[in-house]
């Protein structure tokens, strides 16, 4: 019952005009960047970070949540209408959705994607509402050894699951960990890996690294391998709508997609690729018209889209309750919390209930807004694609420069931008995953602090690290994750 009254208070916060405005702003921005190539939710939130100094935390997070959800909606639009899945999570949507659009059923595909995202987003938010406080309650009993084991689990899973090679995943992770070590050591005040450059004493800002990797790296990569998009836009005007028959075929895949997406999204390293792939495979197995798959089956859009959105809500569970980011977007959200001097985790629920519940309530509001923004206005969003690529990427670089310069007006940051941008280019050419760098950068200091606290409490005896059942369980799980690629390869072969 307590959850209900807290949620009601949350709605009181989320429905304040100023917060409604930020929810709308976030939803519009999110949908736009979801439609546009070359820019995703993590980069957008990172670029918005400096602006937040003049915005109250609650409003800022409500806006970020709008960006996170909006990008999912916008991403499905381009997948369906021009067959360019902007991220791994919408690959399956493009598979069936674009075929539907070509067969003149684009409106149905867009509608089932938007409504499915709405249903999944709402159910997942509902699950978040009740699961988050319970998990936060458990997290109160976590000891430093447990937290350290949990970060090890997060590291292993992220390095293993994201990308195609375990070794390259771990290289990315360790580069992130090394970047996270730069600066003054919090516990002893000693400068580490600064090599005498005073500007590095404050450490590497996550926003700088993220913007360099995602914006500069991407621009360098696309510029060197640019090919004009040959796939034409399937014309689409007016409303996206569906028939009763489409609805009848869609609602079960929506629910199944949500059931897959939410828990997997909440797991470290779960991401959105695996649940959407699972959902697609499941729908093809269960469908009464399996022959339609590959030629535009609506179940193949409905299920994965729902899974994708539910997974996006799922990442908020470990982030809010444990302070554990499991994706690039979650990492930048964690950085935003830190910018406000807030540490997500169990204490956030007791110390800042207004923020947490306002944020959760705004997710319900945001979903309704996005549905309204996307169903009738889809023709308008598609027009964004008429921005020519040269000017679009040029604009992205300008905003990236503003974002990085705005952090601390430091030329060293700008030099870092170029070096890390070239690193981002190399990582794309040699297929290194990028998210583990960010997770390592932001979680590394936390892992180290927990390790040192745990060891200090155990008077330096490393046995303390496996002294609780939970820490053992996490470390065993981390070990199991090392075997995950074999399982995943089988899944891919089956998809």
């Amino acid at each position: 019952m307590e959850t209900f009254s807290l949620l009601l208070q949350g709605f009181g916060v989320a429905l304040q005009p100023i917060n409604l405005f930020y929810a709308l702003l976030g939803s519009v921005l999110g949908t736009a960047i979801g439609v546009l190539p070359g820019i995703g939710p993590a980069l957008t939130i990172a670029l918005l970070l400096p602006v937040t100094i003049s915005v109250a935390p609650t409003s800022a997070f409500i806006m970020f949540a709008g960006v996170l959800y909006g990008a999912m909606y916008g991403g499905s639009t381009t997948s369906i209408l021009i067959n360019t899945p902007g991220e791994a999570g919408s690959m399956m949507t493009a598979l069936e959705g674009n075929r539907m659009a070509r067969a003149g059923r684009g409106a149905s595909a867009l509608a089932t994607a938007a409504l499915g995202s709405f249903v999944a987003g709402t159910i997942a938010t509902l699950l978040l509402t009740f699961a988050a406080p319970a998990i936060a309650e458990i997290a109160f009993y976590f000891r430093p050894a447990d937290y350290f084991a949990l970060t090890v689990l997060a590291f292993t899973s992220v390095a293993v699951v994201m990308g195609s090679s375990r070794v390259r995943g771990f290289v990315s992770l360790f580069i992130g960990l090394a970047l996270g070590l730069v600066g003054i050591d919090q516990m002893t005040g000693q400068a580490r890996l600064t090599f005498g450059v005073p500007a590095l004493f404050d450490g590497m800002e996550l926003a700088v690294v993220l913007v360099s990797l995602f914006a500069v790296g991407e621009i360098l990569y696309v510029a060197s391998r640019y090919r004009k998009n040959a796939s034409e836009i399937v014309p689409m005007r007016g409303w996206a709508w569906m028939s009763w028959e489409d609805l009848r075929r869609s609602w079960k895949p929506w629910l199944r997609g949500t059931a897959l997406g939410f828990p997997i999204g909440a797991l470290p390293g779960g991401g959105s690729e695996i649940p959407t792939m699972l959902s697609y495979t499941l729908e093809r197995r269960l469908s009464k018209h399996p022959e339609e798959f590959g030629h535009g089956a609506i179940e193949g859009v409905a299920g994965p889209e729902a899974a994708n959105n539910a997974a996006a809500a799922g990442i908020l569970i470990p982030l809010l309750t444990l302070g554990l980011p499991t994706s690039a977007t979650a990492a930048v959200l964690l950085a935003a919390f830190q910018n406000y001097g807030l540490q997500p985790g169990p204490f956030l629920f007791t110390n800042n209930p207004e923020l947490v519940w306002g944020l959760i309530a705004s997710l319900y509001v945001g979903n309704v807004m996005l549905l309204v923004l996307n169903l009738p206005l889809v023709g308008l969003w598609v027009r964004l694609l008429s921005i020519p690529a040269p000017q679009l990427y040029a604009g992205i670089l300008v905003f990236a420069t503003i974002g990085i310069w705005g952090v601390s007006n430091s030329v060293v940051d700008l030099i870092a931008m170029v070096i890390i941008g070239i690193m981002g280019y190399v990582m794309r050419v040699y297929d290194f995953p990028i998210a583990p760098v960010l997770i390592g950068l932001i979680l590394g200091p936390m892992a180290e602090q927990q390790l040192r606290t745990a060891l200090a409490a155990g008077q330096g005896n490393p046995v303390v690290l496996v002294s609780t059942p939970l820490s053992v369980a996490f470390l065993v799980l981390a070990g199991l994750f090392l075997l995950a690629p074999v399982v995943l390869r089988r899944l891919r072969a089956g998809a």
Partner: protein
Amino acid sequence: MPNSIPEAPAGGGSDTARPWWLGGLVVALGCLCLYGAFSLPQAARYAGIGPGLFVTLVGGGLVLLGLILLLQIARDEQFIPQDTEDASGGESAHWPAFFTALAAALAPIFTIERLGMPITAMLSFALVAHAFGSRKTVVNVLVGAVLGALSWLLFTRLGLQLGGFLPMAGI
């Protein structure tokens, strides 16, 4: 006999495509961390570990991973460039475009303090647009300048410190 076409030249012929430097770079990064860790105490008095240990661990990890990567490269590990929107991993790099875009990213280092954000934005914008094949340079320069000036006004108003509008002229 379509079946007998050899897929790739065997042996020494493919050595040029092997990115040894990639593994070497990871090892070098690890060594850099280890070098940085040398000057730090590994153990503190009360806590079992000091500020240096984690640095040593990360450096050691990077060296190890770099060596494994070198081993993989020796065993002909395939690196497939990532496919993204607007770019195909299958295509080979077009270096003039790459370096033009790189120049755009480098420009702010030299211009932002003296020439300010709007002019920097103008330069970067025009260079990236050129790298992507746009030859409407005058239009791009103008669009970049307007975008830079408007962003400067908007973000400064939002409380962001972006430096002077045109520092050379003292504005």
